Structure formats: structure tokens, C-alpha cells
């Protein structure tokens, strides 16, 4: 099996986990979790993020911060796939007493690098970590994933200017540009374009890709990681609800769970995609 097919199969598994855990919880945010699947898969399983599930406190690990905390299911699914948590724990999402809170909570799940959920703070937290690594002359890097809706927040731009000014090249951001926020399309609510130019103006190294192209994701993440002299951002153009026909670009699934019938249809579609991947191989 090729490395790419292997990663695509992991992405498929993560998608299944996302819809299943949200359906079980009867609440959650499938749309913005599904749009980020390829980027998270490439990061965690494509050899980009230096990490060791057997040694979670490893000081020289790379750090990942999910700034758009409502996409917690994609992160939980990746952590389960990597072996940080047990797969069956995914069924406890959002339930009383579960470490898998509705939004990431570092106190409840210690392998998380930050608590998020109030938008806009992830890059800033990452800057603090990146500064610490620089001061200690440590090689580890920081990755943060933000959303396009999240980019309405002023703090995103405070952090963009600071990291660019200080040439924090051990900081890498993934912008999951899926085109929607809760109420409507980002173009309609607050158009961020030209987005690439904004980050260039903030003195960042900007890479623009199709965020569902696994090969492009790997190349872009690697390029961001080795780039020196400025922080890097990957503008990943994605589809909200990607991989499930009736969820794609359907903002009903920004923040609501599939019912049982919808879940079965989603799983059937994902299984078809899986079979196709296995045949291609």
C-alpha cells in the first residue's frame, strides 16, 4: 500500500469516528471537523508532527493547538487513532464525567496542549510556546489550526502581526478555509479576501493548497516546517462537511448532529469511499 493510500484510509477512519461520536452525543460540530480531516491526518500520521503517544510528556515534542475548539471531534479521533486515548472513549464525547469535553479542556484531557473554545486565542498561545522554544534553543515546533470564521477575531491579527514581526519560524498555522461560519458563509458575513495578501502583509510565509489533497497537505506541512526566517501559514481551501454528500456545504451541519438515518447514510458513503480506496491500491 502506498503511503498516500495509507493516509487516505486513516482520514476515512477519522471521518467515520467523527460522525459516529457526534451522532452518539446527539450534539457537536460535524461540518468544521470534517473539513479539517486531511490536514490533521497529514500532520499527525504523515511524519510532520514529532510526537510519541507512548511518552506524552516528552519535552521535545512538537505542539499542536486546535484553536477552533469546536472541531474537537477531529482532534479526539486523531488522538484515538494515534493511541493517546482508547477508541471506545470516543463514545463518551460530551457526556458527564468524560475527558472528551464539548471543546478541548486540558485539565480533563492532559495530552491536549491548550484549552480552547473561545475563538481567536490559539496562535497567541502558540507564540508563547514558540518563544519558549527559541529561548531554550529547543528544536521543537508549534502548529495551530484556525478557521476562516475564527479569523473575524481581532486577536488573530494581533498574533499574526506579532509572530511576523518577530520572525517566529518555529510557528506554523493551518487555516481551514471552509467558507462558512455559524450564521452564513464567511463571504457573506465578513469577507476575508484577499486572505493570502493579508498574511503576506503580516510578514508570513504563505502556502495555499486544496486542503483535501493529501499529497499537497504533506508537501505544504513539510515546507512550512522547514521554512526559516518567518512563521508559515497554510491556507487550506476546504469544503465544510467534506466526505458526506448531504453535509457538504450544508451549514445545517455546522453545529448539529446527524440523526440515526443520516448516520447510517454517512457511514455507507464513507464505506463506499473506503472500498474504492482499497481497490485502487
Amino acid at each position, binding site marked *: 500500500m502506498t503511503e498516500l493510500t495509507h493516509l487516505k484510509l486513516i482520514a476515512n477512519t477519522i471521518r467515520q469516528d467523527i460522525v459516529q461520536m457526534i451522532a452518539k452525543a446527539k450534539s457537536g460540530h460535524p461540518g468544521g471537523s470534517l473539513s479539517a480531516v486531511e490536514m490533521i491526518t497529514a500532520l499527525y500520521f504523515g511524519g510532520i508532527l514529532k510526537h510519541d503517544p507512548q511518552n506524552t510528556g516528552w519535552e521535545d515534542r512538537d505542539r499542536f493547538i486546535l484553536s477552533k475548539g469546536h472541531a474537537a471531534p477531529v482532534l479526539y479521533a486523531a488522538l484515538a487513532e494515534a493511541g493517546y486515548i482508547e477508541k471506545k472513549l470516543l463514545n463518551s464525547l460530551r457526556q458527564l464525567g468524560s475527558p472528551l469535553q464539548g471543546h478541548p479542556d486540558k485539565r480533563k484531557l492532559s495530552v491536549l496542549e491548550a484549552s480552547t473554545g473561545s475563538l481567536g486565542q490559539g496562535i*497567541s*498561545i502558540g507564540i*508563547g510556546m514558540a518563544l519558549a522554544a527559541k*529561548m531554550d534553543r529547543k528544536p521543537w515546533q508549534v502548529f495551530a489550526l484556525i478557521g476562516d470564521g475564527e479569523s473575524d477575531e481581532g*486577536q488573530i491579527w494581533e498574533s499574526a502581526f*506579532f509572530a511576523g514581526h518577530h520572525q517566529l519560524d518555529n510557528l506554523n498555522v493551518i487555516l481551514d478555509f471552509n467558507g462558512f461560519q455559524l450564521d452564513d458563509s464567511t463571504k457573506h458575513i465578513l469577507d476575508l479576501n484577499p486572505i493570502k495578501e493579508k498574511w503576506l502583509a503580516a510578514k508570513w510565509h504563505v502556502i495555499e493548497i486544496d486542503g483535501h489533497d493529501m499529497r499537497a497537505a504533506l508537501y505544504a506541512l513539510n515546507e512550512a516546517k522547514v521554512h526559516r526566517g518567518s512563521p508559515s501559514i497554510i491556507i487550506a481551501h476546504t469544503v465544510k462537511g467534506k466526505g458526506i454528500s448531504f453535509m457538504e456545504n450544508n451549514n445545517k451541519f455546522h453545529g448539529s448532529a446527524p440523526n440515526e438515518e443520516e448516520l447510517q447514510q454517512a457511514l455507507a458513503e464513507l464505506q463506499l469511499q473506503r472500498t474504492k480506496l482499497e481497490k485502487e491500491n
Partner: protein
Amino acid sequence: MATDFKIGKATRLAYGETLVELGKRNPNIIVLDADLSKSTMANRFQAAFPDRFFNIGIAEANMVSIAAGLAASGKIPFASSFATFLMSKGFDQMRQSVAYPGLNVKLCGSHSGISIGEDGPSQMGIEDVALACALPGFTVVVPADEIAMRQLLPQIAEHKGPVYIRTSRPKAAIIYDERTTITLGKAHIMRQGTDITIAAMGLMVAEALKAADLLQKEGVSARVVDFHTVKPIDQVMAEQCARETEAILVVEEHLLDGGLGSILARAVAKSFPVKMDFIGLEDYAESGTPDQLLDRYGLRARHIFLKANNLLGS
């Protein structure tokens, strides 16, 4: 007179100078400021340790979350700005980036209260203690003079967990003796008394001591207590004062809602309820000299004296 105090340094200057001393002992101490370091006095640390100082720019939200990232990586960040800008603009970040994961971040708000003077209400931190005390896990400290700052700041650096430190702009009367031991979390009896307790924080402790002198002349024995640690409040001292004096008068250069008075009232109510009254601010003030403002807004020894008499007579 006992209250003929020598005027010392502003607590903000003592903050900056003490940070330098702490920086010499602990290489993990990092200082951040949001373009007010010449006023918060964090620039003292910058001069001594330029590699461990970051001027974040006028971006308090960014600063607080950056401090959280530093703390998550083992550093001990001290981030400062004016009290009102730090608390108001950095509050959501203190809530989510700092308090929620319980990170070891130290925050310092200078220019608290109305005694900043001419710059006016937009620059006056009068809600900061209420906001800081609302955050679970936070310790909130208001040193009254340079000696208190020099003693409390090293304890704050040693303490594991988020801390808010409140400083003042004007030079502060020296009310402590260098040899006194001041302990984080323990209110300090400045002057013994049996009729009434005057509880205060920050610059108001000196005013309370002056008021105690005035009361003494009338034959009233007033105890003065410095509640420098507003949160967690010294429950033992609160109960002791309630049991040993007839009434408690709280004085603070802060809004009455959510400040020292409301916190102390809760502590007293649940242990040994006694008569209480409160001196503080009820609205935004205005421009003027610090002295004019303290007179105009009722934060002088004579105001404390009058209220104490009324409280005992009621």
C-alpha cells in the same frame, strides 16, 4: 504621631525593581508588557534582562494568551499593563487561556483606582479586582507599599498558579517596617483595636491608619487590617475581627460591587455576622489631581473617621 508616614516609592516602581531581583535568581522569569512598560515599570526588567522581556505592542489579549503559552512551556511569565486595559481587554484570555487550564501566569495591573489623577476615568482601573476575583483559581494581591511589594512578589513568583497583582501610580506612604514578615494569603494587623475593624487594601491602608488616629482622639479603639490578599480572603482573620470588634468598615479604591468589601462581607456573613459598612467608588470619576480626587470621592481619613463613627453609633 504614629501615622506621620514617610513617603516611599510607588508600588509600581517597587514591582519593576523587585522583578529585577527575582530575575537574577530565576532564569525562568519572563516579563511581558503591552507598550506601557515605562509606566508599569516593567522596563526595569527590560533594562536588566533584554532577552527575557517582550513588548507585545498595544495588544493585551495577545499578551495574556502568549503568557499562557510561555507558562505551558515551563516559564514564569509576568505580564503587565494598566489595570483597566489588562483586565478588560485580556479578560476572555485570562478566563480561557489561563484560569481554565490553571496555568502559572502572573498578571500585574498598574494605575489602579482614581489616584492616577489627570488622565481621567478611561485610564482608571476600578473594576479590576472584581474581574480578577471572578476567575476560579486566581490569587489576587494588592500590596500597600514598597515593603509589602518586596515581600509579596517573591512569594507570588514561588506560588504555582495564576496571580493578579494590583499596583498604584502615586508614591505610597511607607506603612510597614522592613523587619515585618508579610505572608501571602494572610491579612496583616497593622494596628490593634477593640471597638471597630477598618479593613483596607492598597493606598487605603495608610488612610485607614490615619483615621484610626483620629478615632483614638475620640476614645474609639480602631483596629486596622491590611487585606493585601483579596482572594483567597483570609477567612480566619475575617472571623477573628468580627468576633473581637463590634463592627467592620471596609475601605477600597475600587468599585463597591465585587471588590474587597463584598468579598469580606461574604466571609463575615458565613462565620460571625456583625455590622458592616463600606467605603469605595460607585461610578466613574473624573480628571483632577490625585489629592483632589481622593477628597472629592470620599477616600480620605476624615471620610473613614465619619463613617466609622456612624457605624458604631447606628
